[in-house]
């Protein structure tokens, strides 16, 4: 006999599909929705429903937007000569929080990963070519993750962009800011040494 009503099972199963949520947490969330005031649940449902109707990829950089152009692309104070290529939309937020970058972004929508069947055609490279074709961009900053797939994608982009008269740069790997050298792990210290610069 199944103790839990099917509707709750269904909701738990949907929650469990979300990243970072295991079966136990999913069940707790589903039971919470049952116990919470009806208004709260309605707001949650409305927010979820509205999301896909209202938010779409920016037509230029593929970051998330409620208009044709996102808040970054439509900001006239951003420097259009610098373009930062990132894996996904969340990476834009991380770089924006740093306040270090005043240019525009391009969201690839993933990285090369043959195991997952992701090749160049699955990334937003045509859009990137079109943007660079306009001739405004001077520097492309590649900000993919420093793992095997991110590095390979960076290599791929560097090859693809070579010979176009662009400056192509890669984010540095190194020590976390504000941290003690003695607490950094060996791999990070080694990478920081390999990427040292003259003063």
């Amino acid at each position: 006999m199944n103790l839990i009503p099917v509707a709750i099972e269904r909701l738990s199963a949907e929650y469990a599909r979300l990243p970072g949520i295991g079966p136990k947490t999913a069940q707790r969330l589903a039971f919470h929705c049952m116990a919470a005031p009806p208004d709260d649940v309605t707001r949650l449902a409305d927010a979820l429903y509205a999301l896909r109707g209202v938010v779409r990829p920016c037509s230029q950089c593929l970051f998330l937007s409620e208009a044709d152009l996102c808040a970054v692309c439509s900001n006239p104070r951003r420097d259009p000569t610098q373009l930062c290529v990132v894996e996904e939309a969340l990476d834009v937020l991380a770089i924006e929080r740093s306040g270090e970058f005043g240019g525009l972004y391009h969201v690839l929508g993933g990285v090369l990963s043959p195991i997952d069947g992701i090749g160049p055609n699955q990334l937003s490279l045509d859009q990137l070519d079109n943007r660079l074709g306009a001739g405004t961009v001077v520097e492309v900053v590649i900000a993919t993750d420093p793992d095997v797939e991110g590095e390979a994608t960076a290599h791929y982009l560097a090859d693809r962009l070579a010979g176009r008269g662009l400056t192509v740069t890669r984010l540095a790997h190194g020590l976390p800011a504000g941290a003690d050298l003695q607490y950094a792990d060996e791999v990070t210290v080694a990478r920081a040494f390999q990427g040292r610069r003259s003063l």
Partner: protein
Amino acid sequence: MNACRIESLRLYEFRNYADTTVEFGPGLNVMGGRNAQGKTNLLEAVATLTLSRSPRAASSADLFRWGSTACLVEAHVHRLDGPADLGVRFTYDTATRHVGRSATVNGKPRPARSLLGICPVVLFWPDDLLLVKAGPEGRRRLLDVVLSQLDPRAMAELHRYRRALEQRNALMRQLRDGGGSLSALASFEAEFIDAGARVRVARARLVQDLLHWAVPALVQLGGDGEALGLNYVAGGAVFDPTTGDVDQARSAISTRLQARRAEEVARGISLVGPHRDDVEVLLAGRPARTAASQGQQRSIVLALKLAEVAHIRATADVSPVLILDDVLSELDETRRQSLLATVAESGIQVLVTTAEPAALHGLGGTEIHFFEVDAGSIRPVR
């Protein structure tokens, strides 16, 4: 001497153990009992905890007790610089069939890789007796297990190399079947070559270090130590780390990749790189797999294992725990005595399983603790 030892070990829902805790002593710990009672599983649990994964199971899903979806191994480890509590837990998600792994050090969640090196181990399974004669995989694994415990950078490079290899192989298969992108292949090769070169140099250096310790060990076992030779063989040629560096290894891999590209694409696999390297074992300049007798080969294997112990002691400044699964009964009396004498002298902790614990009674000069393993339970015997 900074002897590292496991003071207590808990197995929860691991293999045939429901929930068992055992306290080990320093020196020799002998686990006896009939076959299929869980002696090897106990040693596997130690290896799984200290290496963060089982060196024996094809899949971590095999580690769960029948019907269980979570298992745990914990140990209290004695070190001169203070005790450490290690834990590793595996959980099985029945919906996705995914096995999750989490680790703790001193009660705090840590990445699983941080378990390695806290309590280094030297493993000796019955299969290892064929280490000289059998294929290169076992010899590569020996090097990788030592490197992973001693050198976090080498471990990171090994991990990076394996990932690049997997991606490259996936791409090779796509290219073979008419898909894939050649320019993407070149992009993964940059990672593949760099990580591969670093793995190659680290392994070749380790081979030299092991030879340094294996020579006197072989003499102690009554063999001809001076005649022993070990070479790291990369891409069909000996790689000498005293003359070759990472740059040289990089260009060697790169050249070989160019030469065999067509063949690789045709077959859809990577034929070049450290995953195909080998350690050549020589006796008086000739390959030991054919030139050495079976007895000589066993002595060489023992010498290599003792060299692992000695190298870890010298490099990590902590003595490893030696894990011997049913190996003693495979050795003749002379080799058994010299192995145990060496171990007793070094003061390291040894966990050993045997079907005939009585043969070890009355062994002079060593502290011996006996245990009886019976149907997933273990108790000390006097």
